[in-house]
């Protein structure tokens, strides 16, 4: 029996460990998760971890030290599929906010000075696909429970994950919230991938963009809409950059006909 189940490993690189913790917080479903798959490695949850061949590796966190880079390369080698979970692994997360390597280095030295670290060398934090091929992405800061469980179930059945290809606005409409943009509050809902269940707007608060940019086709016009509303370009860009790490530059490059 055990041999037929998919071999799964859950790994944590640099981050807040919120994605692994969220998996642990799926208390009612956790027993089934452990039963349905052969969880080979999950450091936060169990001690008898094995580093062998895997069907699926779920990796959270950004690559931020040389040691982590080595671990990631080794995980990739022994896994059929690699899934990036959480915004740090998919886009770099808050710690990947310095886009320019020189800017990162300067800031690093302002914190740690010239002290030479003896444990492992720090790297500018980057999403995992900066170094290895990633098969699937599960965004969020942290990932959402529903989206994780549905993705996990699909992976077990041998299917690719199916994520929403529309912005938070759609979920927000489902919940019949008043649009905050109508109240002149800058909300990133139109530009941010859905999946969180529009949790911030459900609390009358603007979307902070923690799921990263939506892949939806209309995003250029959504972006222009925010500019037309009178929000400054820098303000929108800075707010979007808070969670989306080094990937945000790509997003802006892909916007077509953006007004300046």
């Amino acid at each position, binding site marked *: 029996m055990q041999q037929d189940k998919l071999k799964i490993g859950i790994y944590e690189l640099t981050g807040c460990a919120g994605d692994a*913790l969220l998996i642990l917080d799926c208390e009612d479903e956790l027993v089934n998760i452990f039963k349905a798959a052969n969880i080979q490695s999950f450091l936060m949850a169990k001690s008898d971890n094995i580093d062998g061949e895997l069907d699926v590796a779920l990796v959270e966190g950004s690559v931020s030290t040389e040691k982590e880079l080595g671990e990631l390369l080794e995980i990739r080698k022994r896994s059929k599929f690699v899934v990036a979970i959480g915004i740090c692994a998919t886009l770099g997360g808050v*710690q990947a906010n310095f886009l320019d390597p020189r800017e990162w280095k300067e800031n690093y030295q302002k914190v740690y*000075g010239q002290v030479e670290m003896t444990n492992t060398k720090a790297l500018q934090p980057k999403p995992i696909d900066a170094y290895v091929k990633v098969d699937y992405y599960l965004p969020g800061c942290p990932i959402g429970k529903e989206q994780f469980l549905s993705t996990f179930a699909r992976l077990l059945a041998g299917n690719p994950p199916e994520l929403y290809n529309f912005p938070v606005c759609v979920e927000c409409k489902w919940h019949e919230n008043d649009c905050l943009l109508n109240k002149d509050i800058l909300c990133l809902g139109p530009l941010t991938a859905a999946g969180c269940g529009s949790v911030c707007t459900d609390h009358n608060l603007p979307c902070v963009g923690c799921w990263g940019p939506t892949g939806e086709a209309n995003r250029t016009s959504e972006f222009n809409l925010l500019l037309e509303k009178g929000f400054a370009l820098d303000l929108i860009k800075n707010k979007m950059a*808070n969670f989306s790490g080094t990937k945000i530059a790509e997003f802006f490059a892909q916007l077509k006909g953006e007004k300046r």
Partner: protein
Amino acid sequence: MKKISIEHLARLEGNGGVTATIDGKVVTEVKFVVNEGPRLVERLTLGKTPEEDVNIVPRICAICTLSHKYAALRAMEKALDVKVPPKVTLLRELMHLGEMVESHSLHLYFLALPDYVGFPNAVAMASKFGFEVKIALEMKHFGNHIMKTMSGRFIHGENPVIGGFGKFPSREELILIKNRAIQFMPFALKTAKLFAELDYPDCPEAETQYACCKPSGNKFGFVGDEIIISNGDVIDSQDYKSLTNEFIVSHSYCKRSLYKEKPYSVGALARVNNLGERLTGETGKMYKKYFSPRWKKNPLFNNAAQALELLYSFERIPGVVDEALKLPDASIVPYIKKDGKGAGAVEAPRGTLFHYYEISKGRVASADIVTPTAQNAEDIERYCYLTAQKLLETGQEDKIRDRMDLVVRSFDPCISCSVHMAQVKKAPEEDWKEKLADLKKKQMPIFVGLGISNRSDDSACLELASKLRQQGVPDVLMESEIEENDTLHEKSPERSLIFLDAIDFGGNPGRIALIPLQHLIWDSVLSHRLLPLVSSQLDYAQLKNSFVLGIQPETIQEGGEISRPVREAMEKILEEIKI
């Protein structure tokens, strides 16, 4: 060469470890290492708006997310001069109590208890403690439920904002929380008793300083505008830097703190030690019944203190809900983003957490965050050293690894703020050479020869020092030349200070070891005439850069010659130090 190591200690988050290196009868090195990569959070909030900052900083840690949120809000509201209505303060307290319940129940039952009742993990423990494991899980779930109700999500909820909440919980939601808290009381009482009555080993025991927030109005609690330290000092939280004094060590990305140049502890034990007399109700009764002077010097009692706080939290929740229900909901307090600065202190489950911001032109101009694990790191290392040394001396070397693990875990470290991996290793035969070379690389150390002339091997290091002088090594001193008020490190504290001495550390005659001086000072067994000589003259930073290059003597008889193995050791040392 024997190396004792432990598997990755699972069931915690993050990435770190503790290593003790032993040589004969002495522990030559203990390092608490955090391998988690640096994220530079304080730097990357610069230039953000205050609201964005409050979105970003809780991402430091998923377990303490709401403590970070709360500390950031308190700092920002101080800086922007925002006064929130009493209902907001009460509901923030409720959300914080939710985090305390979640974190403490997880730590107590799933991380700490298995060690004391002899099971490898909570799942295995369930075979004997099935009921406890089940209810503890429900208790944790209840903590999560409060956090979600108040913040919007299990983790990183955005509902608490500067000036209030985006949305207030409904009356029904609050009453449900109150009723469930009351239902948990019997189990919370049982938990307090269980953890107070555990058989905590008396190793390690040593005094330390404790610090925590001092809540207003003589109440117990988890926030305060002042910080109280166990020696009686009280510091305004705006002045938190006089407590924390952060500095960097090269073996870890986690910063360190010292108060009055000595390590201090924060966390549940610090709170109960400093404020326990303020506890009332059932928690007060439990405190009076179980508190003993041992709590003041043994970090393992942190678990008993956490269990008391868990009880306190359940006892406090219904009162918070009742008070909150009497008050109207309030819209978010409007504010202008004026220039200003402010610090916010809260008690995260694992200890005092500080956030500090300066706002200029509506943006964050300066940020400083001091986490509990950073403040505890020095004491974690120190207690691990004491544990390893004591067990080594009493012939219980095989227990060192597990006991150090217990010590580290009792601090409930959080290494996004900590899996730890305790490790004991034997010092390699000649590892002093490498360490000495490292010290020399920065700048030639100052050497001090210690010993008594005309007393066989005890005179060896005096002779060694004079030979170093002959070879032209600068700044070599003799014990007899040091005046009482000499400042040995006067010029640069980066320059290390090495005492040459014949010391009995259980090796074969002639064995050489380089031992950090602080280890010798902390421990009474190894203290000798060095102690009064140096402890009065070195501050802590200098102490951390001072070492003893020891030679194991064969004999220290009066009037004898220096033995052959010790002479050979002297030659080896001369070879390594020569310019």
